């Protein structure tokens, strides 16, 4: 990174008001959210009947979305914790992006579970009547815990930046100034305060890794503890975690490109960041590809009757177009793009990131629904539409609304807080100059 004066860094990284593009973006997201809310009101009024969920496919795109959100949230622990603990400094400008993606995704993971419930008013029963033996309860506990840890991991490094932002009273406006003062007026840049903050971030970095592993392992156990073709696997925890790191890293590639271009942050999110993140995505895609081969090759080699129907449905049957798209888009094509030096330039990396995220969303759908449509006991005496699943417009609208909601949270966060840590960037620039 070239030499930058402190004031210039602050000026570059302070949150900016929405331009015309930003306003259109926010209005579009709000419109999608509003449509989703309308569809959810219909679902509340008429019940789950408005969805395509029936006796067999009782989990559809809501639960796919849930698994997707939980997966993408793991990026917080990858960028912030894993790279921090391994003393990798180039990732500093990306830590806050990763953390806000994590907070936003995990919040909507919790919400989408409530959306999937026919009677959301009974949600409190999970806490009052939950069975400790059930992975669903473990999921509730671990999601709540992960959300708190992610919020703390977002908050502690923000404290010195809040102090900087409070100094720009006129630029902030009345309400933002009040918010900044509420959150960080007590920060005085004292060495003791830095000492406590550094210690807290280190503790959080250590704590968040097992919790992050737990959150997605438990999510995988929601499936793997059920005896069904496609889910009956001892490999599911590792399979889910490797996929989660991949989709999270893909999400960061997209966010890096969007923030870099929109806020003109080329000096901070450099080509080298794309190069390094691209290499990480290739590694993660290869690991996930390995787990996929493992997950499909072993049962396909044995071809037990029930597994055969499920696997053939994926390979050549009803779900084959989605299956091959998901495998290609989330793993094969991104690997081919990012393995080359040209592929790790911002535009290509952004494109690869989109492929990873979109492919991964469909991959979650393939994990959830086809299995439910291939039970061990044959389906009979049920209407024909019970044997297939295609989401209704209400389901698409609600799922789309939740995705738009998650993007809105990230957008508003970037409007209110610096998306690249200002204080850490200044410190690293200074130490770079001294070196």
């Amino acid at each position: 990174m070239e030499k930058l004066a402190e004031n210039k860094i602050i000026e570059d990284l302070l949150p900016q008001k929405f331009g015309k593009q930003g306003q259109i973006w926010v209005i579009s997201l709000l419109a999608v959210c509003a449509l989703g809310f309308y569809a959810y009101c219909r679902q509340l009024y008429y019940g789950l009947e408005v969805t395509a969920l029936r006796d067999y496919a009782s989990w559809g795109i809501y639960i796919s979305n849930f698994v997707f959100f939980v997966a993408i949230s793991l990026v917080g622990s990858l960028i912030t914790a894993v790279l921090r603990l391994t003393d990798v400094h180039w990732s500093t400008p990306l830590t806050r992006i990763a953390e806000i993606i994590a907070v936003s995704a995990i919040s909507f993971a919790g919400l989408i579970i409530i959306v999937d419930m026919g009677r959301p008013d009974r949600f409190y029963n999970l806490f009052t009547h939950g069975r400790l033996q059930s992975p669903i309860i473990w999921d509730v506990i671990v999601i709540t815990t992960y959300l708190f840890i992610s919020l703390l991991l977002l908050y502690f490094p923000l404290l010195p930046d809040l102090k900087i932002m409070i100094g720009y009273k006129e630029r902030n406006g009345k309400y933002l100034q009040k918010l900044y003062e509420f959150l960080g007026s007590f920060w005085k840049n004292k060495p003791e305060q830095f000492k406590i903050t550094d210690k807290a971030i280190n503790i959080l970095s250590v704590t968040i890794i097992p919790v992050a592993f737990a959150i997605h392992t438990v999510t995988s156990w929601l499936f793997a503890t059920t005896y069904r073709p496609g889910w009956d696997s001892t490999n599911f925890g590792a399979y889910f975690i490797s996929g989660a790191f991949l989709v999270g890293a893909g999400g960061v590639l997209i966010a890096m490109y969007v923030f870099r271009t929109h806020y003109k942050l080329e000096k901070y999110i450099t080509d080298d960041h794309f190069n390094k993140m691209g290499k990480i995505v290739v590694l993660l895609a290869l690991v996930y590809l390995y787990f996929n081969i493992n997950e499909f090759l072993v049962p396909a080699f044995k071809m037990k009757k029930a597994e055969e129907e499920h696997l053939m449905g994926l390979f050549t049957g009803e779900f084959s177009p989605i299956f091959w798209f998901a495998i290609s888009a989330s793993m094969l094509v991104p690997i081919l793009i990012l393995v080359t030096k040209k592929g790790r330039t911002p535009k290509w990396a952004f494109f690869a990131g989109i492929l990873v995220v979109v492919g991964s969303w469909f991959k979650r759908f393939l994990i959830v629904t086809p299995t439910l449509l291939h039970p061990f006991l044959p389906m009979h005496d049920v209407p024909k539409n019970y044997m297939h699943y295609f989401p209704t417009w209400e389901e698409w609208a609600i799922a789309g609304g939740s995705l738009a909601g998650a993007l809105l949270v990230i957008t508003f966060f970037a409007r209110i807080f610096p998306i690249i840590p200002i204080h850490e960037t200044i410190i690293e620039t200074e130490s770079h100059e001294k070196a």
Partner: protein
Amino acid sequence: MRKHKIIQVLVLVIALVPSLLMAQAVEKNSLSLNLKYYNDNNITHHLLVQAKSKIDGKFQQIPNIPVEFYITTDADKANLLGKGITNGKGEALIEIPPTAKMEWLKSPNQTFVVTAAATKNFDDAKGELAITKAKLKIDTAEGRMITAKIVALVDTTWKPIAAVDVIVGVRRLGGILNANETQTYPTDSATGGVTAEFKRDSIPGDQKGNIVLVASVVDNETYGNLTAEMVVPWGKKSVYMTNFDHRTLFARRGHSPFWLEILAYTIVVGVWSVIIFLLVQIKNIKKLGVE
């Protein structure tokens, strides 16, 4: 000449096709109604009809056939016992109502009739069954012996009947388990009775050890189906066992195994202690800022 022949054949085909189609349209399958009589423990009587038809070379059970049951004859609508519709197994069942008592008492022999009107796919059909009224009685004797006796109505008196095969056993899982290794016993000519030794000592009964002994005559051409039952305390007393309140992985809420509770709560308390510790650190940072 050849052209002339082709025209002749075409005319013939055109003339025949409508009649062939018509013939196909009105073709119906014949329906067979098989009527059975049941005397249930000398208390109630019921009739069961099985509707079958030969389709594709095989006899198949025909559901959704409306049927009417009559006593003695179907010529008089006053003899109607009731109506039914065959179920998925092609069967319809009716209890003989008390209103048929006067007709029932007229003769020691009884005829039943079942009819089915013609439907879209089947011709009308009729089934008849003639039985001689009989009773099957069951009792026990010393040494865990089961006795059963058949009497039939001859004129106005009940007389023992010989050479009728009787199954003697115990009611078990909806069927009859033989009392010993012998399948059926023929009634003797003098008493019309049979005797079977009960050798099923370990049959589970209810909490008092009660089991249901059964004597049964199945599909007898003269007497139909007769059944008699008797409750005796010859079974093994069942003790209600449950692990409902035990701590297992499959138990209800609050009954999870101790090891799971200790493990889970230790993890939860451990992680949340860290979170609380960090919240306290925020307070400390705040304190340092105020000083």
